[in-house]
Every structure is written in structure tokens, then in C-alpha cells.
């Protein structure tokens, strides 16, 4: 019996918060160094073109300008063509406007479907077409056979629009080359400080041991702070040349233009079904807009989409081609869900289309196709191996909480009164904690593992370091809980350090719902190593054999006797070492790396009820119920935060968000006045519940939670709105479901 309360599983409030709520946290742009200069970039006004001339003379002449540099080549909207360095950020901005840039504009490729036809324009003149990556469809013959056996086929063409991650903190970089020790320190708002260090070393030709990358407080990422950006390489280069620290903080307009976007898919999908609602097979094509310069994970993300298109369903065949296309727009990369929301959106639209075609209830169609609990581990039609799942009880819980039967009755009454009320459902799964590293490409320069380290001080207080790089997830708190529980010490006696490559052993970072699943497991392994060594030391000091010693939560005890020693006493002895332990080194610390043997597949069932205003096209969300299953939970308070935030982010895509360019490649949504973010008054209270189906792939039983919300909520809302509009004859709509688009759909159907 543990003698102390266990904190894992408790709603512990965050240790990160005191500094944040008092305005005392330090984000990159908050740092000021002696002699620091400011950078401002001059970016192309055209999506594509040829630079004829860049004239820096006027910029150089401005008082307070220290340096200015140009780029020779140009391709892709908002690519920087020059940079100006000045004593303060106002002068830098003025001087950036002084730079004269003559560009002969070219004809840009903007539309994703248009990019398929090279005769309409090419991003790269020396390429035959705009195809960046094409992955042919597998299993075409078997799938053809399934289509021949089907009672019916539904065909969908779905746009998953381009959106912007919009972390509230834009990107920022501060580089300081210290000429004395020949050391480069870069503070940058990133999710992956270790990868930034690796890439800087390669890009700048500086040994990585002379580079320190710090991710200080990071104000959100959502995937857009995984790629290493040109500014992160350029500022160190400038700092080294000028031997002064140089800072750049992205403006929101730069952020919308120039930080990676997400989604930007078109799916052309056919689904073969039987009249009892069984989905037999999917086939078709995924088109993905990877921009002019494909970003870090960009093209890989599109390949996740067919992989995850089977969702929670047992279909027998899948044959989906992936075509990644260049356009003269900003690159796409990971955005909360990265390839899985696109997959879930499409297969859930397919489920609704089958329900509409067969007259069956959309919930029944989904249940009819669920992979049964007994089938796990299950290999899907796309070849993914699902670790564990039990979808029925999760759906049942959501239906009960939602009062599905009652909601349907209310919908019928409302419809009888002429109201446009709809019910939406999404049942979904996703892939988390990617691994093993055998799937990694040398281009990534990292495997799929994560590091964790534990250092016990002589007092028994503990310092944890993690290669994960949290930026809002709360792992300082969650990891402190784990360490406190491991040794029976107070949570307050644990320090958690991350995001500094000089402090933390080499790691990877935070993305893809891997923080707890991979990083937490690495920490767990390090804690176990330390505990095992502490047990050996305790056994020696207690004059017992190691196998006679047990740990009850904070004290090592010899079986069948009174002899015991607290963890803190062992820590003291491990450092004092006046009674050396044969075969052991002094001290108490360990490093561990967790290499996942497989991926985890959390899941959920979401339901929502909407009313559409037929006159204005406005969508009002009346209720939203989410029952999710992410396996074991370390801190329910943090888990709820992840889910609530993700759900609203996914509803933002469904309702209002869209990156839009005009046909010349001018970004029309270049400020938050034009790019419509979800706001508080648009949503009702989200009702949460959960089930727990642990994974066997890590000792924590945790499956990953960061991306569930965005994966479930987008299809759920669209399902509800289509349900509301169906009595008026609307059978298709694309996101975002703005009042204009909904109103147009109603008008179109009325014709």
C-alpha cells in the first residue's frame, strides 16, 4: 500500500500558471540583450516573378540602420527578398519600406485543382507538371471487385480548405553569436528545439556543440512551429556577421502569409456499400496543396490521410491515390491533427451519405461498421495496426448523454414548425505517438523516440528533464506528478526542465500527441531506472538482498522485518557515499529513451445539435457532446483543456476559418480582421465525458489526447448542418459553413 496519495489521475492545477497569470513569463520577444538589433524583412509583393533589381541604398542611408542584405531568387508568395537590421524595430520597419524591389510578376498557380493541369501554369518551369509527390493507389483490383459486389456507390468531392494555425504568439527569433566562447545561442518560438539545433548546425556550418537553442515560453504551436524556418537560420548568420544579438518578431500579417498553413486537400472519393449500411470499400484520390516550397512534414501528412481513412470501420478495401501539388502559396505542414482530420472528415461524410442513400439512421450505419472489440489488435484496410479500441460503449455513452432519441423527436417537432434543426454525429479514431523509428526518413534527421532524464539531488528533491518541448500542454505539471508519485515526494519538490538544448539531453519535441505517450514513457523509464538503483543501494545499507527489498511508495522496506529506509535517506546516502555500494557508482540519476514499437489509436464519439437560420444562413450550435477515449489519463484537468480547445479549433474550421488568395496570389486573409477566428460567443458549453481503453504499447496506458478534438468536431458539425439542410434538398456543402455559403446552398437547392 502506498503511504502517500498518488497524484497521477488527479486534477492538479498547473505549476506553469503563476508566472503566466502574473505576466512574468518570458516569451522570445520579451528578451532584451545588450546591444541587441532588430530585423525587418522585405517580402515579395507577388506570388511568383523574377527579381529585376533590389536597391538597398535608401535603406542604408537611414539613420540607425546597421546592415541590409538581399536574396537573389524568388518563388512563392511572401518569400523574403531582403532584410534590414537596425537599432530599433521602428527604424527597421521604416528601412524595410525604403528598399526598392522591382519584380516582373509571373503567372501564379493558386488553385489546387487547377494545379493538376500544367497547361494552365507551372510553379517550376523546368518541371513537367506541378506534381511534388504522387503515391499510387494500392489494391485497385481487389477494390474493383468489392465495388462490383456493392448494392450502391456514393461519390463525394470534398474540399478541406486551407486554414492557418494562428498560435496566439506569432513566431519570434533572437540570435546571439558570442565571439568570445564562439558560441551561438538562439531563442526561438519552436516546438522542436533539438531539431532546430541540428538544422542550424548543418545550415550554418557551426558544430552543434557550439549551438544552444532555447524554446523559452512558447505561445502555442499547433504544428506550425515544427518546421525550421528561414528566419531561424538567417538571424544567427547575421548575428555572427555583425557580432551583435539580432531579434525578429513576426507580425500577424507575416504570420498569416508566411508561417505554414494546414489542411488544403481535395478528396475525390467513391464508397461502395450494401443496403444494410455496410461500407465495403473506398477508392479515389487525395489532392494536397504543399505550396511552392514543401515544408518539413508537408507531403508526408497527405499520406496519413488514406492510412487513416478507414477510421473506426471494418471496410474490406481501400484504394486511394495521393497527389501532392505545388502552388505559389505558403506551404502546408502539420496543423493539429495533420492528415487525420482530413481522413475523418471524408469517411464521416461517407457514412452520412450512405445513411442518406439507404434511409438508415446515421448512428446505426456507423455502429454497423465498427471494428468489434474482439478484433483488436486490428489491421485496417489501409494497413494500419490499431492497438486497442472499444467503440460501442463510447458511442452509447455519448448517445445517452445527448438523449439521442429525445433529440430526434425534438428535431421532428422543430421541422414540423419549419425550423432547420439538425443532428450531427462523428465517430472517429486517430494515430498518435508515431513510431517506430524505422519509418523515419534521413531528411527528418530524427527518429520517433523521445528522451527523459531524472536527477535526484542529495536531499531527494528531483530534477526532471524532457526532450518534449511543451508550449501550453502542461507537461511541467504532469511530469512533476509522475516523478512525485515515483518517489513519494511532494509535487513541489520536483522541477521539470525542457526546451533548452544545453540543459536537456538530446530529444525530439512536442507534436503529434506524443508528449505524454512518448515523452512521458521515456520519463517513466528513467524513473524506474532510478528507483531500481535506489533499491539496490537501500538493500546494501539495510544489509539485505535486493530481492528482499520492496518500495511502498516512499520507503524501501526489508520483507518480514522492521528495517526500512526512506527514498530521501537513500538519496542522501547515494551522494555521501561513506558506505560505498559494491558495483555501483555514487549518485542517483538516469537517462532513458523510449522508442515506440507501434502507434496508439485514441478515439471518440461526438454528437451535436444545430439550428440554421434559413433567412440569414447562420449556424447556431445548440448542444455539443463529446465522449473521448485516450486511454489512461495523468491529469484530467489538463486532458479536458486539450479536448475543449481542440473541439473549438475544429469547429472553427467547420464554421469560419479559411485562408483565401485571389487569382493573382494576393492573400485576402492577411490580418485577423479578415481571417475569421472562432470566438467565445459562437459556442455553447461543450459537454464532456470519457471512456478508458488503455493501450498495451506503453506502460502508462496513455494514447494521446492533443488532436482528438480537431479530428472529431469538424465532421460532427458539418454532419449536423447537412442534416438540418437536407429537408430543403441540400445534399452537399463545403466548409467553412459561413452564413453566405449556407444561404447559397439553400438558394441553390430551392432552384
Amino acid at each position, binding site marked *: 500500500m502506498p503511504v502517500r496519495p498518488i497524484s497521477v489521475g488527479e486534477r492538479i*492545477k*498547473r505549476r506553469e500558471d503563476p508566472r503566466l497569470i*502574473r*505576466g512574468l513569463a*518570458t516569451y522570445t520577444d520579451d528578451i532584451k540583450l545588450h546591444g541587441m538589433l532588430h530585423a525587418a524583412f522585405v517580402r515579395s509583393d507577388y506570388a511568383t516573378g523574377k527579381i529585376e533589381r533590389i536597391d538597398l541604398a535608401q535603406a542604408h542611408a537611414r539613420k540607425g540602420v546597421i546592415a541590409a542584405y538581399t536574396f537573389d531568387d524568388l518563388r512563392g508568395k511572401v518569400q523574403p527578398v531582403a532584410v534590414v537590421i537596425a537599432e530599433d524595430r*521602428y527604424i527597421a520597419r521604416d528601412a524595410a519600406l525604403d528598399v526598392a524591389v522591382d519584380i516582373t510578376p509571373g503567372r501564379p498557380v493558386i488553385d489546387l485543382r487547377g494545379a493538376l493541369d500544367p497547361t494552365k501554369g507551372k510553379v517550376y518551369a523546368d518541371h513537367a507538371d506541378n506534381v511534388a509527390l504522387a503515391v499510387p493507389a494500392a489494391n485497385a483490383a481487389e477494390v474493383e471487385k468489392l465495388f462490383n459486389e456493392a448494392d450502391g456507390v456514393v461519390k463525394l468531392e470534398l474540399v478541406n480548405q486551407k486554414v492557418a494555425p*494562428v498560435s496566439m504568439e*506569432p513566431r519570434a527569433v533572437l540570435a546571439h553569436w558570442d565571439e568570445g566562447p564562439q558560441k551561438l545561442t538562439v531563442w526561438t518560438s519552436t516546438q522542436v528545439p533539438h531539431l532546430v539545433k541540428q538544422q542550424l548546425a548543418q545550415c550554418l556550418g557551426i558544430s552543434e556543440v557550439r549551438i544552444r537553442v532555447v524554446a523559452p515560453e512558447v505561445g*502555442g504551436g499547433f504544428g506550425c512551429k515544427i518546421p525550421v524556418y528561414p528566419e531561424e537560420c538567417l538571424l544567427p548568420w547575421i548575428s555572427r556577421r555583425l557580432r551583435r544579438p539580432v531579434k525578429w518578431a513576426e507580425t500577424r500579417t507575416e504570420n498569416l502569409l508566411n508561417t505554414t498553413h494546414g489542411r488544403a486537400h481535395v478528396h475525390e472519393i467513391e464508397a461502395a456499400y450494401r443496403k444494410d449500411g455496410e461500407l465495403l470499400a473506398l477508392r479515389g484520390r487525395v489532392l494536397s496543396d504543399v505550396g511552392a516550397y514543401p515544408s518539413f512534414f508537408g507531403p508526408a501528412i497527405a499520406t496519413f490521410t488514406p492510412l487513416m481513412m478507414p477510421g473506426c470501420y471494418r471496410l474490406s478495401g481501400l484504394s486511394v491515390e495521393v497527389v501532392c501539388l505545388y502552388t505559389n502559396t505558403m506551404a502546408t505542414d502539420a496543423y493539429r491533427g495533420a492528415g487525420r482530420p482530413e481522413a475523418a472528415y471524408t469517411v464521416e461524410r461517407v457514412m452520412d451519405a450512405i445513411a442518406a442513400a439507404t434511409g438508415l439512421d446515421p448512428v446505426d450505419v456507423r455502429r454497423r461498421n465498427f471494428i468489434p472489440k474482439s478484433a483488436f489488435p486490428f489491421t485496417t484496410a489501409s494497413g494500419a495496426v490499431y492497438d486497442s479500441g472499444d467503440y460501442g460503449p463510447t458511442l452509447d455513452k455519448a448517445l445517452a448523454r445527448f438523449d439521442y432519441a429525445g433529440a430526434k423527436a425534438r428535431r421532428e417537432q422543430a421541422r414540423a414548425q419549419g425550423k432547420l434543426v439538425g443532428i450531427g454525429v462523428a465517430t472517429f479514431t486517430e494515430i498518435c505517438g508515431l513510431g517506430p523509428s524505422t519509418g523515419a526518413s534521413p531528411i527528418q534527421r530524427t527518429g520517433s523516440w523521445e528522451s527523459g532524464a531524472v536527477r535526484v539531488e542529495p536531499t531527494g528533491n528531483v530534477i526532471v528533464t524532457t526532450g518534449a518541448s511543451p508550449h501550453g500542454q502542461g507537461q511541467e505539471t504532469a511530469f512533476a506528478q509522475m516523478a512525485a508519485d515515483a518517489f513519494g515526494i511532494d509535487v513541489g519538490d520536483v522541477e521539470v526542465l525542457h526546451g533548452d538544448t544545453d540543459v536537456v539531453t538530446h530529444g525530439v519535441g512536442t507534436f503529434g500527441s506524443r508528449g505524454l505517450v512518448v515523452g512521458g514513457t521515456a520519463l517513466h523509464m528513467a524513473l524506474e531506472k532510478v528507483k531500481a538503483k535506489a533499491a539496490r543501494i537501500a538493500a546494501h545499507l539495510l544489509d539485505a538482498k535486493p530481492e528482499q527489498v520492496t518500495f511502498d511508495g516512499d520507503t524501501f522496506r526489508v520483507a518480514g522485518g522492521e528495517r526500512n529506509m526512506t527514498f530521501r535517506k537513500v538519496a542522501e546516502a547515494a551522494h555521501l557515499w561513506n558506505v560505498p555500494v559494491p558495483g555501483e557508482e555514487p549518485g542517483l540519476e538516469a537517462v532513458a529513451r523510449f522508442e515506440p514499437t507501434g502507434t496508439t489509436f485514441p478515439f471518440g464519439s461526438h454528437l451535436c445539435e444545430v439550428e440554421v437560420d434559413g433567412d440569414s444562413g447562420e449556424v447556431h450550435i445548440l448542444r455539443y457532446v463529446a465522449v473521448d477515449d485516450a486511454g489512461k489519463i495523468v491529469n484530467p484537468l489538463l486532458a479536458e483543456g486539450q479536448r475543449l480547445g481542440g473541439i473549438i479549433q475544429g469547429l472553427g474550421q467547420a464554421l469560419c476559418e479559411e485562408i483565401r488568395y485571389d487569382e493573382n496570389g494576393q492573400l485576402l486573409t492577411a490580418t485577423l480582421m479578415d481571417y475569421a477566428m472562432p470566438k467565445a460567443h459562437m459556442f455553447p458549453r461543450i459537454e464532456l465525458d470519457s471512456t478508458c481503453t488503455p493501450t498495451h504499447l506503453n506502460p502508462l496506458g496513455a494514447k494521446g489526447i492533443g488532436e482528438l478534438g480537431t479530428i472529431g468536431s469538424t465532421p460532427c458539425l458539418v454532419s449536423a448542418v447537412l442534416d438540418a439542410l437536407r429537408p430543403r434538398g441540400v445534399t452537399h456543402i463545403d466548409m467553412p459553413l459561413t452564413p453566405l455559403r449556407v444561404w447559397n446552398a439553400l438558394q441553390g437547392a430551392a432552384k
Partner: protein
Amino acid sequence: MKVSVEVNGQVHEREVAPRLLLVHFLRENLGLTGTHIGCETTICGACTVHLDGRAVKSCTLFAVQADGRRVTTVEGLAKDAEHLHPVQTGFWEEHGLQCGYCTPGMIMTTSALLKDNPNPTEAEIRYAIEGNICRCTGYQQIVNAVQHAARISKGGR
């Protein structure tokens, strides 16, 4: 131009350029970096401070507009860790923040709300923070935080 601005109870006299934004005056000249910049267009509210007791967005005010006036920033709400403002306590207790970047603005907006309306409904809270964008929380725990603050404020703070 010379300005004299009372910030968090202390009067600061500085020579500033007429175009210097209030947010840069606070962050760069006074070193109060708790006030953040998220959009430069008065949409996101990360830069919200109190000007003579009213919530305003400091990214679209000039420092000279604050001349002779009283500014409170997030750093001015609590004198130390033991004496948090009820809204700060609410945010901590209810997990009203994740990355923390929008948080100072959210706290300044909602502390001004509670001054005018000590017992707001959920709908009133949601409308009050319409000018503040949060990407992490989905707002629900922020609403809970403000309700928490309203409750403990009534409890005699």
C-alpha cells in the same frame, strides 16, 4: 514628446516618439512584457490593459494618448504571489489558460467586466471576451475562471 504616465501606481516620465505605440512603451521602455502583441489590429486583445480603469487595447493607442493618465497592466494586479487578483485565481483554479499568451489580455478584460458587472451570466462573459482571442482553451475554461472569480469576489475579497 515628453509624457508622464502612471503605470501600476508609479509615475513614469519619458521622452517618446509621437508614433510610439502604448504597447511598445510598456514593453520596451518600461520593461513590462506581460502585455503581449498578437495581431496589431485590435482584434485579438492580447495587449489589453486598463486605461483610467477601462479595458483598452494598447496595440492601437499611442503612448502619448496615455499622457497624464493611469495605466494598469497585468503585472499591476497582484503585489505578490500570495495576493492574486480574484480573476488570476480563477484562471489558475479552473485551468483558464494553456500557452498563456492571450492570458494577460483575457485577465485585464474580464477584471474590467467584473468591476462593471460583478455577477455576469455565461452569455455576458462570452460577449465580454469577444474582443479577445484564445486558440488553446476553446474559451470554456476561461468562462469557468471568470465565474470562479465572481464567486470568490462575493466571498469578501
